[in-house]
């Protein structure tokens, strides 16, 4: 009995301390007034997340600067070189970037609240960054341009010469999802796969979200050979003519980390927003509204989306990605021309 009451007291004190800590963080965040977020999450999704946060914590503005992962990296590095401190939170879909940031001492050690239950693949063992979402890179096609029984089912189907001039690809220099996708398929098939794919003269776009989905939905090209599945799903739900293929040989799973920049101009607001990103509410919103997968164990997914465990997933290692990023870009450009 006595031991139990001590335990209860202990828990109560800890809870009180935690909420006092959070109140202090909110207070400090409000004094800072805003948080600057460089993000590669698609524009509608990142603005939706920002608005959810701004409704909860009124008085703290989230400044969303969305561009591709490669450009986020370029921007961060250029600002570091110039000594400009503008960014608070960095989020890209190229986990290799975060290995680089960590090695160069550009990000802050911070463990967001509530990440205990996340799988190990979503965590940096040194607590510098955590995966806030995961994205599948899949094939998608326009059912008005390709009959269902004709549609490609596997990565190798895309090598068929009958698709020459009919396919589009997003770019690994721009998109972290695609950089990861390329590494995953190189691990599976080697560079020969991309050399052969290039013979089908692909239409190259930059972004793996709105741009490539738009190119296929508008009918400009019949097939996307890669791209962020969540955005295909979103556009499909909006009534666009799109179908998603999850190849049986494996689907690249891209875990996209987030980290707080060292020397962030709004550190408290940055911590508050980072904590918020990992709450069940925010993670559930990403799953429901945006069609994303997350590491949060209690999140439910739309019924019409495949369960991750039903798919063969191709995972990639962050440090391998960091090591081979330059090679990925160089060879892709070599094969595809730009």
């Amino acid at each position, binding site marked *: 009995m006595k031991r139990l009451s001590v335990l209860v007291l202990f828990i109560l004190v800890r809870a009180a301390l935690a909420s006092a800590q959070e109140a202090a963080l909110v207070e400090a965040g409000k004094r800072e007034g805003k948080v600057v977020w460089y993000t590669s999450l698609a*524009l509608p999704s990142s603005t939706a997340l920002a608005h959810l946060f701004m409704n909860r914590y009124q008085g703290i503005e989230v400044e969303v600067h969305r561009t591709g992962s490669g450009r986020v*990296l370029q921007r961060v590095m250029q600002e570091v*070189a*110039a000594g400009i401190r503008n960014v608070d939170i960095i989020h890209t879909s190229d986990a290799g970037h975060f290995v680089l940031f960590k090695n160069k001492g550009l990000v802050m050690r911070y463990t967001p609240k509530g990440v205990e239950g996340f799988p190990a693949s979503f965590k940096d063992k040194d607590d510098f960054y955590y995966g806030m979402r995961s994205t599948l890179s899949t094939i998608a096609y326009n059912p008005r*341009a390709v009959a269902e029984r004709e549609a490609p089912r596997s990565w190798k189907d895309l090598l068929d010469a009958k698709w020459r001039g009919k396919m589009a690809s997003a770019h690994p*220099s721009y998109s972290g999802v695609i950089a990861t996708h390329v590494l995953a398929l190189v691990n599976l098939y080697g560079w020969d796969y991309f050399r052969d794919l290039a013979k089908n003269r692909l239409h*190259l776009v930059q972004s793996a979200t709105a741009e490539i989905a738009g190119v296929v939905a508008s009918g400009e090209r019949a097939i996307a050979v890669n791209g962020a599945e969540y955005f295909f799903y979103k556009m499909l739900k909006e009534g666009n003519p799109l179908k998603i293929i999850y190849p049986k040989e494996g689907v690249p799973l891209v875990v996209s980390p987030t980290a707080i920049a060292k020397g962030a101009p709004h550190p408290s607001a940055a911590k508050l927003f980072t904590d918020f990103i990992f709450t069940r509410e925010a993670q559930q919103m990403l799953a429901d509204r945006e069609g994303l997968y997350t590491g949060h164990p209690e999140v439910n997914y739309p019924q019409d989306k495949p369960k991750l465990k039903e798919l063969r997933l191709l995972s990639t290692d962050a440090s391998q990605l960091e090591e081979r990023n330059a090679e990925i870009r160089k060879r892709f450009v070599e094969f595809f021309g730009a």
Partner: protein
Amino acid sequence: MPHATDALGQLRVRSRMIFRAVDWTLPIWIGAALFLVFLMILPLGWIFATSLWGEQGWTLDAYVRVFTEAALLKALRNTILISFWVGVLAVVVGSLLAWLVTRTDLPAKKAIRALVMASFVTPPFLGAFAWTLLAGPNAGLLNRLYRSATGAEGALLNIFTMEGLIFVMVLYSFPYVFSMVANIFELITSDLEDAANILGAGRLRTMLTITLPLAAPALLGGFILAFLHSLSLFGVPAILGLPAGLHTITTQIWALFQYPPRPDLAAAFSVPLLLATMLLLALQRRILGQRGYSTVGGKGGERRTVRLGIFRRPIFFLVLALLSLSVFLPYGILLKAALARAWALPLTWDNLTLGHFRFAFFQYGDTQGAILNTFKLGILTATAGTLIAALIAYITNRQLFRGARYLAFFALAPLVIPGIVLAVGLFFAYARPPLLLYGTIWILFVAYLTKEMPVGFAQAETTFKAIQIELEDASRIMGANRFMALKDVTAPLARSGLIATWCFIFIGVIRELSASILLFTPKSKVVSVVIFDLKEEGQIGVIAVLGILLLLVSFFLILAVHWVAGRDLLVSRE
């Protein structure tokens, strides 16, 4: 009246002395020198230094790589090929149109000139974007029309090819040739053509043997101008070339800034672009300088209009069709995309929306900030640029001190630097401490001011040339000092010309992309950059809204100039 002339001469001498007494000379030369050092020598110096500096000290490695690495060589070859054909085709289109407008009885010449002007102010990247909607091989509007009309399966046009790229560049380069050649045609008298006619040559033969050779220097000059213009473009090859796997020098330089950046290669790749521009401009100057024909220079004589006869109407419609490629079709599809939920579907009541306008102007922070920045920069650059250009033009025109005419060199020198090369240099010079402008709009201000200075100077010079120096002298004789004369006589007369200068610089600023693309940061985004970025977000409607905004502002300013100064950007630019 020897006394009067004497007095006048003394007055001029004295006015120069007064000018010297205030000791303006030194500050002005220092100002010009600072301008040259900080806006040109330092950035260009950085480019050369970066291109020659490797990890182990001075080296030519970067140049060796630029001229041996397959991908870079290919970009170089693409660029030369593209620019050559743009030059040739722009000369054909531009000079034919110029001849039709100046020397024939073609109807509605004023309207045609206005349409050429509209092509001229249309930002080429916007035209390229519109053409992706018109002539994308599958979803493009024209191709869909073609398929439904003929039942064919293929595509009539594919804009994502080298030919497509050349086509769009010609649409927005030919006005340069047009203005240059139209100026010459207006000066060539008909005497020689008459002689040829009398000797029995037909219209065509006269044109080929007389008119064309007379205009040849202008044609060559126009070729060089169009060649250089297409060489410096970034937006068109980025929008039309990259999807097809085609790099040009400008897109390659831009790509070399991706992480991990290769500043040495970017610098080494900028040098050929810079040298080519310098060389070709020098060549152009020589060619145009040799224009010694009395037939061209004189104001006298008669210019007879050629009657087109039964071809008058067909040719007119042909011209309209041509201009619809650069104006009506792109503007039409932009307007449609701005108002439609789905740009590819017909504009029915259900498909109509003002959502893109709402999003661009009220909801999306990036567009709001960019619109603000663009206008801020337009006003700042136009104001500073007009003041500086007017000062230099006034001093050189009035020869206020010894060597004054050399000041013109400072104002015209930036002509030799393509936008992206300027940006590379400014980035090296001002994107790290101690001279840190990067991250603010001031680095863009510096870039725009440098880039627009030649245009501003040319405008201001025209203005002061037109004001008779005697008017000032008269007021001086009546007892006014130089500043009173300047304020009461020259300034009012120059006002409309300087307003025109201001407007033209402003228009130049709001359409700039090739330098901005390397120099912007999230805080200092401008509309052109946002348009480029939004393409990746698939926000076609919002791009159209922003494009229409740029066009409307430009047209409004051109009309304003027309009313206030009766001046045409096209004719006085060169």
